[in-house]
């Protein structure tokens, strides 16, 4: 249902109510805004020296820029690896071998049921202590993201394969393909195309989760922000700026998802 179908088009009294509500709300926003600005100013948070570095301080911008690159790098690598692993897991489960489905099912349940941060901490603490190996923070973050997202993507792909018409599999088997070949050449490619929006949403989740890396010493954007804020003494401003960057990136990725979906429908209808 489109949103405006919920209400009748307003008569004169309705319009008046809407106008009053609009006025009251705008007033509230202005009052809250004014209060916030007043309080921030009283604590010196509006002082230019707290904000200007983000425009003038090249060193700072490079510093944060490095963090951004680390964020994007780890996120992309994690996405690609998770896609591969997720597809393989989904195919494994769809083959119909009971023991394999059980193992994969358990993997998926476990890694969807525990926090990503726990994965990171397990690797960060566990690998040096148990395996007596050094492991870089980058590796910790990527593997942790991989463990979680491969499980999620395996589920997404399972839903995608299940959503395909049953005739696809039947026809393929009837042509003489094995279960594996059916998955590889017929079902999985279609399922991927079907699930592209969900997969792109997952990329946004990966980008957000990468920020957890600061807890295990990964020098991505949030960690750099924390560092810079300490040195420059402007934590609030720094986190606001970083927040804006994250939102901008994620909105751009989401927009790309819409664009792809748009292109898909046009391609499908032969335009």
């Amino acid at each position, binding site marked *: 249902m489109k949103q405006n179908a919920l209400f*009748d088009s307003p008569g004169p*009294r309705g319009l008046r109510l809407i106008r009053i509500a609009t006025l009251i709300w705008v007033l509230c926003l202005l009052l809250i805004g004014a209060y916030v600005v007043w309080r921030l100013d009283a604590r010196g948070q509006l002082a230019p020296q707290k904000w200007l570095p983000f425009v003038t301080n090249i060193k700072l911008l490079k510093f944060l820029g490095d963090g951004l690159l680390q964020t994007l790098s780890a996120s992309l690598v994690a996405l690609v690896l998770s896609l591969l692993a997720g597809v393989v897991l989904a195919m494994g489960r769809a083959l119909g071998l009971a023991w394999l489905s059980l193992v994969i099912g358990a993997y998926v349940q476990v890694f969807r049921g525990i926090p990503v941060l726990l994965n990171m901490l397990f690797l960060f603490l566990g690998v040096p202590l148990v395996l007596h190996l050094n492991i870089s923070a980058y590796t910790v973050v990527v593997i942790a993201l991989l463990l979680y997202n491969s499980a999620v993507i395996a589920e997404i792909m399972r839903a995608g394969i299940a959503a395909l018409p049953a005739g696809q599999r039947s026809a393929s088997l009837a042509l003489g393909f094995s279960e594996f070949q059916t998955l590889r050449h017929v079902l999985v490619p279609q399922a991927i195309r079907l699930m592209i929006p969900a997969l792109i949403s997952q990329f946004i989740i990966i980008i957000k989760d990468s920020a957890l890396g600061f807890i295990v010493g990964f020098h991505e954007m949030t960690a750099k922000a924390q560092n810079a804020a300490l040195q420059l003494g402007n934590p609030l401003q720094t986190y606001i700026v970083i927040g804006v960057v994250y939102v901008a990136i994620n909105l751009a990725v989401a927009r790309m998802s819409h664009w792809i979906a748009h292109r898909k429908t046009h391609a499908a209808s032969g335009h």
Partner: protein
Amino acid sequence: MHDIMIALRDVSKWYGDFQVLRNIDLQIGKGQVVVVCGPSGSGKSTLCRTINRLESIDKGTIEIAGQPLPCEGKALRDLRANVGMVFQSFNLFSHLTIIENVTLAPRKLRRSSKEEAHRHALQLLESVGIASQADKYPAQLSGGQQQRAAIARALAMRPQVILFDEPTSALDPEMVGEVLEVMTRLAEEGMTMLVVTHEMGFARRVADRILFMDEGEIVEDRNPNDFFNDPATDRARAFLSRIL
């Protein structure tokens, strides 16, 4: 006591730049059965929906039983309770059983007690031939049964007028007859009806008047025999040759 149930005077409506209703003048008397036909996009559905204000109008006036159509509030709700509507896609409430669908409005609008509403509902379902389906959910009924249930739901509020917006257009051909049968009986019982439809057989047998609409205007307003035997305008002639 008003003889004119529905009166539209100089009614116009625009969707942006597109004028969907042009200076409509229409009066429907008590007990009249008026069929509205015309090509798609002619505004006939919109016309039907302006009468209970599911669509608003930009110019002109609408009166129901001598009272101007209210824009909002309790007055509008009271009027809507008095003007029934049957939709092309039935629109039964999918989370309620058939009998709950029929008793919802009478109970909520405090027209009846629970027992009375239930009794009346069963009577109505009986009269449209689906009393045995009373405890089923809409999804379990065929299209024809659902539409008959929708008619019963509209009748439960004892309206003075019923609007039908292409009631059989979404039905498989073999079910159209059972719905038209119910509508014919309603007409014979003296219900004032405005029916937007392509069912010309029904129009010929049952309607007192036929309105032919094209591009937002009422082009012809005749009695059925005259209209079918000798349409006055070329547009009507073209339309009839296409569908008959």
